[in-house]
C-alpha cells in the first residue's frame, strides 16, 4: 500500500516536473517566435535581435520569390489563385459526402484551371514557360500529379507482379527492382540531362514534364510494393469465390480484391504519399525551384538577408508540417470510414 502511494507521488512529481519543463519551453518558444520577433522586412532590426527573437521579416521581404519562385512578377496573381484552386480541390475531396463521378468531374475541371492559370497562353493570359514555374504551386503540382500518376501505375505493377503471366511478372519485377535500386536524385538527373541527349533532334519535352514522369515512375515502384503487400494479404478464397460467380479478371480485381487490399495498406500508402510530398524538394538539383529551392533562391545570394535563412526554413517547415499533418488526418479519417 505504502509502496503504491509512494509510486503515485513519484509519478505525479514527475508529471509536475515535466509540465513545468514544457511550460517553460513553451513560454520561451512563444517569446522567441512571437513576442521578440521582427515581422517587418527590416534587416537592421533583425540583426539587432542577435538571436533573441525570430526574424520573420525575411519572409515578409522575400515572400514573392519564396511562394512563386521565378514566376514573372506581374503575373503572380495566377499562381496565387492556382494555390487556392488546388487547396479547394483537396478540401472538397476531404469532405466525405462528395463521391464518384461528381468528384472526378470536379478534379478534372479543377486541374485544368490550375494548369491553365500557371501556363497561360489562352484567354488573354500571357504564356509562362514551365522552367519559370516555382514555389508552392510547383510543390503542390508535383505532389498531386505525381501521386495521381504513380497510384494507377503502382496498382498495375502490383497486379502484374502477382498475376498469372510469367513474362509480365518478370517485366514488373525487373522494373520495380531497377527503379527501387537507384536514388531519386539519379532518376531526376537522368530525366533532366541524359534523356534530352537520347531524344531525336527537334523533340523538346519540357524539363518539368520529364521530371514529373521520373517522379511518377519512382513513386510508382515504391507504392507498387506496398499494394502488392495488400494483395497478398487478401485470402485466396476471395478471388476464387468471385471467379466462381463468373466475374471477369478485371471485375474480380476492381470490385473484390483491390478494395480489400488497399484498405489494408492505407497507412503505408499514406506514408508513401507524405514521403513524395517532401521528396519534391529534390527537384532543385535539376533547376526547378519548388518551395525549398525557391527559399534558397530568395536568400542565398542576398548578403543582407542570408543570415536569416534559418528563420525562412523554419517558416517553410511549418508549411510542410501543415501539409503532412493534413494528409495524415485525412488518412485516419479514411481508415475509420471505409
Amino acid at each position, binding site marked *: 500500500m505504502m509502496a503504491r502511494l509512494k509510486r503515485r507521488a513519484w509519478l505525479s512529481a514527475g508529471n509536475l516536473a515535466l509540465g513545468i519543463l514544457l511550460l517553460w519551453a513553451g513560454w520561451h518558444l512563444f517569446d522567441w517566435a512571437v513576442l521578440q520577433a521582427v515581422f517587418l522586412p527590416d534587416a537592421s532590426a533583425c*540583426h539587432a535581435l*542577435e538571436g533573441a527573437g525570430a526574424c520573420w521579416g525575411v519572409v515578409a*521581404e*522575400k515572400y*514573392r*520569390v519564396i511562394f*512563386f*519562385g*521565378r*514566376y*514573372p*512578377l506581374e503575373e503572380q496573381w495566377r499562381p496565387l489563385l492556382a494555390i487556392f484552386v488546388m487547396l479547394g480541390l483537396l478540401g472538397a475531396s476531404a469532405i466525405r459526402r462528395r463521391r464518384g463521378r461528381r468528384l472526378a468531374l470536379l478534379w478534372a475541371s479543377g486541374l485544368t484551371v490550375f494548369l491553365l492559370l500557371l501556363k497561360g497562353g489562352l484567354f488573354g493570359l500571357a504564356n509562362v514557360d514551365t*522552367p519559370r514555374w516555382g514555389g508552392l504551386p510547383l510543390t503542390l503540382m508535383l505532389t498531386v500529379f505525381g501521386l495521381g500518376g504513380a497510384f494507377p501505375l503502382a496498382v498495375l505493377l502490383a497486379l502484374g507482379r502477382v498475376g498469372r503471366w510469367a513474362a509480365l511478372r518478370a517485366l514488373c519485377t525487373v522494373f520495380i527492382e531497377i527503379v527501387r535500386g537507384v536514388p531519386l536524385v539519379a532518376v531526376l538527373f537522368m530525366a533532366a*540531362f*541524359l534523356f*534530352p*541527349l*537520347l531524344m531525336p*533532334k527537334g523533340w523538346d519535352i519540357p524539363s518539368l514534364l520529364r521530371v514529373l514522369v521520373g517522379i511518377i515512375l519512382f513513386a510508382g515502384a515504391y507504392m507498387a510494393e506496398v499494394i502488392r503487400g495488400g494483395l497478398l494479404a487478401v485470402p485466396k478464397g476471395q478471388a476464387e469465390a468471385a471467379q466462381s460467380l463468373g466475374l471477369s479478371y478485371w471485375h474480380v480485381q476492381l470490385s473484390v480484391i483491390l478494395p480489400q487490399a488497399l484498405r489494408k495498406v492505407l497507412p503505408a500508402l499514406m506514408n508513401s504519399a507524405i514521403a513524395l510530398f517532401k521528396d519534391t524538394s529534390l527537384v*532543385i*538539383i*535539376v*533547376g526547378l*525551384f519548388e518551395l525549398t*529551392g525557391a527559399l*534558397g*533562391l*530568395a*536568400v*542565398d*545570394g*542576398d*548578403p*543582407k538577408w*542570408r*543570415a536569416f*535563412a*534559418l528563420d525562412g526554413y523554419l517558416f517553410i517547415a511549418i508549411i510542410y508540417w501543415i501539409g503532412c499533418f493534413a494528409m495524415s488526418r485525412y488518412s485516419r479519417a479514411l481508415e475509420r470510414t471505409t
Partner: protein
Amino acid sequence: MKIIFLLAVLLCPGLACAGKTSDAILERGQLACGVSTGVAGFSAADSKGEWRGMDVDFCRALAAAVLKDPNKVRWSPLTSQQRFTALQSGEIDVLSRNTTWTLGRDAGQGLVYAGYIFIDGQGFLVHKRSGVMSAKQLDGAEICVQTGTTTEKNLAEFARASRIRFKTLMFENLRAVLKAFFSGRCQAFTADASALASIRANDSGKPEDYVVLPERISKEPLGPVVRRGDEDWFAVVRWTLFALLEAEERGITQANVDALRARSDDPAVQRLLGVGEDVGKPLGLDREWVYRVIKAVGNYGEIFERNVGPASLLQLPRGINALPRDGGVMYAPPLR
C-alpha cells in the same frame, strides 16, 4: 559528368548539336544564359525575382549586342553540379556563373572560356583578436571550409607547399560554416576573397573585428564559358567582354554614350560607337552593337561598381580587376 559529355560527343559529332549558336539565339529571340542559384554580386535574384550581378549584366550585354534588347534573356539558375552539363547539352548558350578558368575545364570537356570578367583568389578570414597577420602564422590552427569545391584542395596544397599543418573542419553549406566561424569553433575561414569580403561586411555583425589576410593561395579567374566548336559565337562573347573594357578605357559610360556618339571626334570612340569604321561586321553584328551594350549596362568599371564595388554590399576594391593603367590586369586588345 564525364559520361554525359561522352554521350553528347557520340550523339552529336563535333558537338554542333545546337547548330550555329547565334542563329539559334536569333530564331529563339532570347539568349539562354546560365547563372548561379544565388551568389551575391555575381548572379542572384532580388526580392522581386529580378536577376542582378556582374555575371547577369554580362548576359544582358550579350543580349543587347545580338538581339538589340538587354531584356531578351532566358535565365537558367544552375547549381555547380549542373553547370557544365547544361552547356554541353545545349540548354544554354553561355555559362556566366562565376566559374574558374582552369586547363582541365578549358580543354577536354568540349568547352572553352571566352576570357575572365573577375579575378578572385582564395584567402583567409580571421578574428582580429587572434593577432594573426599572415596565413603562415596559422600553423596548427583549425580552419573552417565549405565542402564540394576546390577550396579544400587548394588549402591542402598550400599547407604542403608552406610546410604547415591545418586541422580542417568541413561544412556542407555556407550558413553552417559561418555559424562555426563566428562562434569561434575555428580560428580561420577560407574561401574566395570576394566572398570573404562580403561575409565580413554583411554577416559578421562587426566588420572591424575581422580581417581578411593578405595571402591569396589560389588563382580564380572567373569568366564566361561557351561550347567548343562554334568559333563565331565564341568571338561574339569574347569581344563583348573586350568592348566593355575598351569602353571604360576610352571613358565611355552609360551616361555619356549618347553625347559621345553625337560629338566625339576620337576615331577609337567613333569606331566603338558605330559612327566610324565598322567593328560589327567581322562578328556578324551590326555597327552599333557596342553602343547598345554600353547604353544597356555601362562599361566594365560601371558594372563592377554597381554590383561588387566599394559602394555595393560586397564592398570589394578594384584591385587586380582594374585596367592596366590603374595597376590591374583587365586588358582588351584593340577593337578595330
